């Protein structure tokens, strides 16, 4: 081989050697740290008011910014008050349960149709507040429509759906939640809850004003004596908060992130309300 060809070959080899070295070097450190946006902790408040309940309960906590180290907070010093046209009432700290503020409904009777504003102040945090209007009407138009049977191939046994239909109250936005219980023939007084994917139990009448809504609860129990359904007629905050909360899917990287609803200004959580209707049928 002539000398100039060898020189060219050498240059080509050096050139490709440099390229390969450059590529290998650049392959390292493909993961880099990025500064997280700065945020401050804020108060998290949850309360759900109902005239049919015996207690007004407010749960208080705080959010933990991701780029900060956890610090303890004494929530007992928070000032929690409920304000409405009925006047203002401070809700005291519950020493027994902890981080919960409670007040008997009898001390501050809740009126259907009234708007209540919850306000919470604590040193080191912005004052937060949220309002709810208690649904003025209870929906009682619920009926049991029967049981359907299906076979579970994994468990090799039958299971049942207890089906209910609900007629929406027309002319207004309505939101519902339901729970279902059953009693057995050997103990007709004890009602056991049926667990369902809770996100599916929060319904709205959007695009279906005055129409039918349906609930189905699954059970493997064959010995059913009575079925009890408790229907919650809720406000929008109650519905939206729970819909989004139960959609939260943790760290699943393939899941759409869930922006959990909040109607608490300067903070997080929900201030909601509901009404109760109980419906029992003997099978």
């Amino acid at each position, binding site marked *: 081989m002539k000398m100039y060809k060898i020189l060219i070959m050498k240059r080509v080899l050096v050139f490709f050697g440099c*390229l390969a070295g450059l590529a290998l070097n650049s392959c390292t450190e493909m993961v880099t740290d990025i500064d997280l946006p700065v945020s401050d902790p804020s108060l998290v408040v949850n309360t759900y008011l109902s005239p049919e309940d015996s*207690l007004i309960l407010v749960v208080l906590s705080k959010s933990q910014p991701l780029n900060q180290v956890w610090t303890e907070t004494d929530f007992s010093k928070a000032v929690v008050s409920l304000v409405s046209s009925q006047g203002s009432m401070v809700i005291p700290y519950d020493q027994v349960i902890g981080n919960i503020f409670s007040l008997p409904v009898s001390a501050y009777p809740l009126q259907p149709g009234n708007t209540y504003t919850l306000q919470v102040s604590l040193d080191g945090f912005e004052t937060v507040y949220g309002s709810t209007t208690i649904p003025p009407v209870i929906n009682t138009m619920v009926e049991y429509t029967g049981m359907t049977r299906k076979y579970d191939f994994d468990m090799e046994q039958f299971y049942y759906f207890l089906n209910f239909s609900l007629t929406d109250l027309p002319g207004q936005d309505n939101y519902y939640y339901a729970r279902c219980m059953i009693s057995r023939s050997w103990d007709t007084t004890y009602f056991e809850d049926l667990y369902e994917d809770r996100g599916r139990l929060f319904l709205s009448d959007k695009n279906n004003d005055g129409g039918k809504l349906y609930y189905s609860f699954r059970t493997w129990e064959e010995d059913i004596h009575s079925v009890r359904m408790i229907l919650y007629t809720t406000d929008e905050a109650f519905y939206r908060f729970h819909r989004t909360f139960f959609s939260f899917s943790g760290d*699943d990287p*393939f899941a759409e992130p869930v922006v959990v609803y909040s109607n608490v200004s300067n903070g997080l959580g929900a201030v909601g309300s509901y009404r109760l209707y109980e419906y029992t049928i003997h099978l």
Partner: protein
Amino acid sequence: MKTMKFLLLSWFFSLFLPGEKPAHAQANRFTLSGYVSEAGSRELLTGVAVYVPEQKVGTTTNLYGFYSISLPQGQYQVVYSYIGYEKHLLDIRLDKDMELNISLVQGAELKGIEVKASAEAKESESVRMSRIALPVLQVKQLPALLGEKDVFKVLQLMPGVQKGTEGASGLYVRGGGPDQNLIILDDAPVYNASHLFGFFSLFSGDALKSAELVKGGFPARYGGRLSSVVEMNMKDGNKEKLAGEAGLGLISSRLTLEGPLVKDKASFLFSGRRTYIDLLIRPFMKLEEGVGGYYFYDLNAKLNYDFGSRNKLYLSAYFGRDVFYYRYRGGGSWDRDELRSGFYWQNATTTFRWNHLFNKRLFANTSLIFSNYHLVLHAEDKSDGDFFKLKYLSGIRDFALKSDFSWFPDPAHQVRYGLVMTQHRFRPGAYTVNANYMDIPVDETVRIDALESGLYAEDEIRLGEKIKLNPGIRLSSFVSSGVSYVFPEPRFSSSYALGERAAAKASYALMNQYVHLLSNTGLGLPTDLWVPSSSVTRPQRSQLVAAGYAYDFAEPRLSLTIEAYYKWMDHIIGYREGASFLVFNDPESAEQVSWEDNITAGMGHSTGLELLLQKKTGRLNGWVGYTLSWTRQQFDELNNGRTFYARYDRRHDLSLVCIYEISEKIVASGTWVFASGNPMTLPLALYQPAPYSHVFQSFWGGMEIYNYGEKNAYRMKNFHRLDLSIQFIKKIRKGIRTFEIGLFNAYNRRNPFFYFLERSYSPGGSTTVLKQVSLFPLIPSISYNLKF
């Protein structure tokens, strides 16, 4: 049946449209018509400008190389011009109808270099706007990832078109998603146009004759998607001699062959590409330790027969497949264990086309079209005498009939009308499971049939010398599973000449989309699923208005277009918060969670300003493209009903593209892109709210959740990258060889691909760190091409 009747009526009606004889009666007007082809191959050329300076009238050849123009009796000079080809001037005496078939010679003597050709096509002369005709030859000159040339990656460099994530080939046009692009190859829709999870598109350009992107001002002949139409046509095949092109790259090799079957009458084209990383690493793997690999390939084929100027037949097909596989064989003779698993996805299209010339002013094309896309996951396990087989399939298959008519009554009008009927078969999910321990094998298939139709009419009108209009109407319909939709879709484009070199333009288009792509990654993964409109999932709709200005500089020959647009989108779909496509594809839950439960509908709007300064000819050519845009969406069930920035909202997007012919033997090129960071939803804090519970004293806790603030409120880091390449071209005895060296991401910028959170623990407590993953460092490439 109604659409069939329309088709038959169209044909019947066409027979009576004014043809040759009435033209004589119209004030001594005669028709000049014919085909324009490439000298040396007789490949029919699309979009060739045919201009008569004395009359200041012109037209362009259609997809099949045909043109027709009617003029008063007289002597004229006719100019035929096309980018990359020498201008052809012809003096004619028009005293009767004339048929002139023209051959254009490629602009450069050395055919590897097409950059210094002449061109007269002016942006200011066309009534159409928001349209980009991409010279396929230019695709081959620009740098590419691993040297793999890609039509879509070049389209991403145009204003109004954005890339999704680093390296991805998906197109995001004017605020629309990748599902809102109609990608057609020889009239057949292609449903998943990507290889290797979206890093490469199906189209390397080897077999393509033309590629055009329409992102607004949609003529009525297009329909079915909201945001864009990417129309590509395969070469017909060289009618004069056997020719071809072969390429050897880092990850794949290519071969294209074309030639005559019957001299000057029939020709063929065959093109194939296959990656071979799996073949290179295969010798180092043992079946006992597990053998896995990945490859993809593309095959294009086309046959055509020319029966003369009146009838031409074309049969074209595309087949491409991506394959992941894993095989294992272990154990001894008593406890043998054998596993075969993998997945593949594939596109297949076939088009049979018939061009028919009723008379010199009426041209028709009728196509029979087949398109099929499906994804298959399979596993087969044999162990100790037991066996288990699983197969999962999802996809979409189309049969379509399409008929298009072009009528050229006089230079002031070019009328098009036609119809397309498509029978879709959706298979959102089908799976079979069989095992020796199962009493009854599972065999569940969901099939949804639908019929989509569109009939249209449009006219390209010239009012005097200054005003051009293109009004049109399309009537689209969709019938499936008890639902039917019929919508009129008005379309309008206009142009007003401001002197010889400038024009103001405006357009409006209403579009409906009846098929939806379920994708929560936006990456173009094969797991994305096509589903039809239904009573719950209504057709998506968009309305787009655009206004623009075009100016053609005399020297240097530059064309400038500036366009502003506003787009409304209704019934667009998105994944519900919390929905996961992994759960969605899990057969266990498919019974309980239908795809309609996982999606939600909303609205969106996008507004933007686009600038394109382009130099199409000369030794130095290229373009600067800039887009300023905002895209926001509102879904009642996302972000608590508040508006948010779309995932593909991009404030600034800039592309600089440069090709420089250093000499006849060396061509250098470079691209530099800059894009504002993509929006993403980033958690700011963790908290533990208390939902209502009847079980735990009215509250139920224990679940820590993220506070995201607003959806898509955080921006990833800005993206920018420089790619370079240099081609060494040499004429050898049997053709031209091109040796190319490329540098992808030349200054090794770490661009964001995705972000994730990592929690770190210390004695003082835990904190969370945000990590950015980049995909492509500086990647050199080398390839060798031979054209013969």
